[in-house]
Structure formats: C-alpha cells, structure tokens
C-alpha cells in the first residue's frame, strides 16, 4: 500500500476529491479521524461540501447526434454518505466507520457525470461503464487515465443561489413543490433554502421534499433505456432528510445544494403517480382517511396473493391485490410492510444473474423511502405509497423477465446445502456466514442463514455480520444504501414473514454484481482503524 505523507487537512482532502485522487482522498479522510482526531461528522460535512458544486447535470437525458436520447446517471456520492451515516449507528464501534470510508473512496469517482459519459473527465462511469480509455486512448499515458487524477477542473452546472424568504410558509411550500414538478430548479432550490432556515418549517419541508421525490417515478423500465429515474428522486430526498438531521440543518447547506436542484431535473415522470391517483379516487375515495395501522393484520393467504401479484403478475394484478387490502380494512403501513416482505421472494427464489439485482434493489430502496415517509409524517396522499412501491417492484421484475433467462448463471438451490448448514453448531455459524458472503457463494450463504434463522431467535449479530461483509466491496454506494434500507425495514416490519427480509438480504449481499473484485478500500480502512473482530 502506498503511504501518503504530509499533514492531513480538510483543504488537502478537498483538493484530492476535486482532483479525482480517490486513494489519496481516502487516506486523508482516515488520517483526519485517526491522526488529527477531527470529529467524523465534520469531515463528512466537508467531503460533501467539496463535491457539492460538481454533482449536478444539465439533464438526465443526453441528446445524441443521431437524435436519439441516452440516460445520464444520478449523483451517487450523497447516497453513499446517507448509507454510511445510517450504518454508523447500525454496525457500531470502529467497524461502523467502514461504510464511511467506502463512501469517501467513491466520492472523487462520482463527480461530473455528464463529462464522464462523454469521456472528458475521469471517474467510475468513464472508466467502467463507458470504457473511455479504449474509446479515446492517450498513447502518452500509462494505464487507465480515466481512473484519475483529473486533468481539468470539474465543471459546475448549477451555481449556488440565495434563498427566497418572501411569502407565507404555505405559499412557499406550494410553489416549491410545483417548481420541482415543473423543472424550475432555481426557484425550487431558493425556496427550499429559505424555508429550511426556520426550524419551525422543517418537518413540513421534509414531508414536502419526500413527497416530491416519491411522486416522480417512471411507469415502466421495459424497453425505455434512459427515460427513467429508477427511484433516484425519492432516494435523494431521503438522503437529504437523513443527512440534514445528522449534520444539523444549520450545517446542511451543501447537502441541500447537492440534492434539491436535481429533484427538478429532467426527465420528470408523473404518469404512474397520475394513474395511482385516479385508481384510488375511483376505488377508495376516502383514501386520505385510511388508518396507518389496523387491528386486521395481513393473513398468510393475503401475503401469498400479494407475492404472486408482485413477483409473477402484471400491474393490474398488483393494483387489485392492494385495493382489496384497503377495502377490507388494512392500514397503510400494514400494506407497505406486506409489499416489502412479499418482494423478498423475488430476491430469495428467482434472482440468479448478479447483474439483474440492480433495478429491483433500487425499487427496494424506493420502498424504504416510501415507508419512512409513511412512518414519520402525516400526508393525505400516503395511501398511494404502497401502490407506487409495489408497482415499481413489479415493473423491475417484469423488466428483467423481458430477457430470456441466462442458463450460465443458474444457481444451485440453497436447500442442497441445508444438511451441511444444519451440521454447523449455531454458535459457530456467524464467521462461516461471513466467509461465504465474502466468497459470494450465495447457495451456501443462504443455506446457512436459513439454518440460523430456524435454530435461534438471535438476529442482531446475524444482520451485523451480513452488513459488514457486504461493505467490504468498493466503488459502489448502492451497497451501503441497500444495507440501510434492509436493516431499517427489518426492524419495523410487523408481518409474520419479516425474517424473509434477512433471507433476501443475505442472497442480495452474496450475489449482487460487484464493481471491483479487490478490497483496496477495506485494506486502507483496516490499516488506519484496526477494527477488532466481531
């Protein structure tokens, strides 16, 4: 491992981030904590601030010279931080810092996405997805120049702005929501800044920004290419709420700058929201008054029907199953708990190809945002949340199923290893589970988890082991985000099948495609923090 010398400072970390020197930036980040004894929270704030001006794009659609469109990805740096901060509390101790180190490792690689796509700036999109080094080779450069450092400063597409503070709170909230929907990014951002200043507005502001994110979702991914956002508007809104609460809203300017302008970025997709609004208006006209929880929990038969609809059915099957739940008196959170747990059967039983986890697990994260919104806020539209989440899940499943299954990626059935797993003493299983998650051996990892769940009621350490193992892989903030969604939903789910969330989680973390086969970032973490064994 290369040793980086000189004093670790925030200025140095900022330069390294903006210069796409991700290894150095991560070293500096670690040294700020371990050598300089700076509080982690403050360093995270500075890392977010260093990236904030450079994460916006002019549009999430790029018009090609042919006249066709391609998608432009969403900033993921802030999603890594949201997952990392959440996992700080979930994992605990020194080990809990690993996700933050992973988030830092990713940040310099995730700037200037627009330029990365056209091979004018280094980072993980240019290096991995676009393979720019092959497209625009430089004979004077050894290795992959799109791995960094940058040869040009990153570009700013959205300048910071002043807050708007005129008008009543109600008027400004209304105007802000409309500005996001209409794509008036300047106005939306300025209104948000003004509203965020007063602590008295913040709960309503959080509700409004989550709502704006949740309602912007594509109808379908099938054959749509880039005309989608796969839940990113909602997931970003949740990141804003979580990180602003963590840092303190008075320290959250750069988080707001990172997230809010993008919520109004093109494309803005409200077709599914419109459909669900119409369906509920027709079938459940008093949906605004539905209870969050009822005394009529879902039966096994209802869970089976909803599973069938989400995993194997079509959009109208999903609508029908959920409408029946409301009509017989289920609460909104009851329905949403059921949606989350029924979807797990897809992860557990159906998914095989490592690349095909991506869209469905975005739907899982989106569902977590919806459930967080329902749990923590009161909004007359919340009855629509389970429909949005379930339809998104169903669509990602159908979108995967529009391609013939690839026999080369067939998984051995987990039950083939049941007897083997049952032969291991329960008190010795956790290290074996960690070993098989790290080996990406899904059949054995899942058989071990099945056996563990059957033989003990202990869950906390099991979740900790899966999460920590999952966070070993670098370059991918989805991992931290997916982990925090699964852990949070497991904790709050009230269905009798909540252990399926752990089964799905284990499969996901032991099979999902990895962006890098090496653990360089983990090794940097170990060198600086010397985490103790679990």
């Amino acid at each position, binding site marked *: 491992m290369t040793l980086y010398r000189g004093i670790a400072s925030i200025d140095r970390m900022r330069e390294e981030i903006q210069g796409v020197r991700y290894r150095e930036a991560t070293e500096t980040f670690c040294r700020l904590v371990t050598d300089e004894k700076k509080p982690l929270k403050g360093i995270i704030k500075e890392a977010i601030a260093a990236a904030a001006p450079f994460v916006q794009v002019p549009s999430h659609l790029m018009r090609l010279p042919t006249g066709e469109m391609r998608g432009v990805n969403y900033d993921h740096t802030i999603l890594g931080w949201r997952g990392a901060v959440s996992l700080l509390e979930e994992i605990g101790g020194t080990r809990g810092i690993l996700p933050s180190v992973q988030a830092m490792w990713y940040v310099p690689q995730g700037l200037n996405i627009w330029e990365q796509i056209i091979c004018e700036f280094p980072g993980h999109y240019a290096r991995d997805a676009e393979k720019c080094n092959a497209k625009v080779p430089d004979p004077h450069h050894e290795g992959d120049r799109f791995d960094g450092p940058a040869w040009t400063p990153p570009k700013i597409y959205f300048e910071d702005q002043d807050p708007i503070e005129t008008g009543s709170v109600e008027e400004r909230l209304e105007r802000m929501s409309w500005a996001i929907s209409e794509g008036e990014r300047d106005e939306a951002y300025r209104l948000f800044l003004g509203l965020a200043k007063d602590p008295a507005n913040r709960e309503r502001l959080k509700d409004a920004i989550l709502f704006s994110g949740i309602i912007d979702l594509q109808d379908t991914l*099938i*054959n749509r290419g880039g005309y989608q956002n796969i839940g990113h508007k909602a997931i970003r809104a949740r990141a804003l709420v979580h990180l602003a609460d963590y840092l303190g809203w008075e320290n959250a300017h750069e988080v707001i700058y990172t997230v809010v302008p993008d919520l109004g970025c093109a494309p803005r997709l409200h077709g599914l929201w419109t459909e669900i609004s119409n369906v509920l208006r027709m079938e459940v006209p008093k949906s605004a008054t539905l209870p969050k929880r009822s005394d009529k929990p879902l039966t096994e038969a209802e869970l089976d029907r909803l599973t069938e609809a989400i995993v194997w059915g*079509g959009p109208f099957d999903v609508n029908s199953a959920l409408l029946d739940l409301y009509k017989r008196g289920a609460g909104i959170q009851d329905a949403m708990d059921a949606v989350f747990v029924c979807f797990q059967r897809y992860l557990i039983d159906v998914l095989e190809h490592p690349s095909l986890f991506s869209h469905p697990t975005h739907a899982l994260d989106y569902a977590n945002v919806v459930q967080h919104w329902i749990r923590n806020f009161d909004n007359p539209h919340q009855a629509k949340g389970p429909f949005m989440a379930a339809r998104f899940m169903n669509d990602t*499943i*159908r*979108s995967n*199923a*529009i*391609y*013939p*299954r*690839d*026999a*080369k990626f*067939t998984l051995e059935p987990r039950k083939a290893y049941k007897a083997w797993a049952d032969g291991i003493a329960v008190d010795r299983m956790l290290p074996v589970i960690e070993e098989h998650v790290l080996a990406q051996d899904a059949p054995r990892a899942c058989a071990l988890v099945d056996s563990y769940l059957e033989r003990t009621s202990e869950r906390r350490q099991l979740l900790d082991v899966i999460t920590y193992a999952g966070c070993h892989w670098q370059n991918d903030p989805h991992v931290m985000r997916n982990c925090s969604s699964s852990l949070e939903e497991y904790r709050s789910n009230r269905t009798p099948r909540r252990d399926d969330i752990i089964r799905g989680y284990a499969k996901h973390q032991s099979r999902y495609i990895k962006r890098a086969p090496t653990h360089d970032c983990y090794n940097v973490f170990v060198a600086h923090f010397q985490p103790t064994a679990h």
Partner: protein
Amino acid sequence: MPMTKSNLGDVWRVRNAAAQTLALAEEQVKRVIQAATVDDLVRMIEAYAPALSTGPEFTRTFDPLVERLWVWRDDETLAALAAVFRERGMPWASVVNALLPENGAAIRAALRQPAWARLPAFAVA
C-alpha cells in the same frame, strides 16, 4: 370458496382435465418441433427478443422451450441454432448459453419421467 368434499372432487377433476389438455398440446408441439427446420426454429426463438416479445409472460416460456428442444431435437440441430445466434453477438448471449451442450446435458440429466406419467416432468411457465 369453502372447501367441501364435493368441490374438492370438482377442482381435482378440473385439474385433471387441464393436465389432459396440456398433454395433448405437448404432443402436438413435439410433432411440430421435430418436423421444424433450423430456420423455423430460429424464427421461433427470435420472438424472444425484448423488442418482439409480447411481454414477460411470453419470455418466461423460454426455459420450457429450451427444455423441449433438448429433449426432442438432436445435438446437431441445437449446435446449428447456437451458431446462428452466436453470430449475432452479445444481445443473444443468454440464448446461446441455453443452447450450449453443457446446458443440454444438465437439462437431460434433470428431467424425470415417473412410471405413471405420460410425459417427462417438463417445466410449465
């Protein structure tokens, strides 16, 4: 529907009729697949392209089709089909992989035909 002795019998008879219908359909498909040329089979498989598929429900029948091809056609035909789709590049990789001899061997080894069954235990999707 509350389960009674009589409607248990009714649903079992409906199930048996469906199985009979399916078995007859399988017999006809078998004859047509056995008589098809490589070009006919290529056209049939092309319908599984995402842009041509009538939906996920149809695409999910790809595995049952592959199973039947390996049982009802010879290795040379499957190799010829694989060669056609291999030429078309990456988008057809999953089709090519389904037509590889190792996949055929796995399918043939896994199929079982109990003494009481008219047909092997094919997948139904």
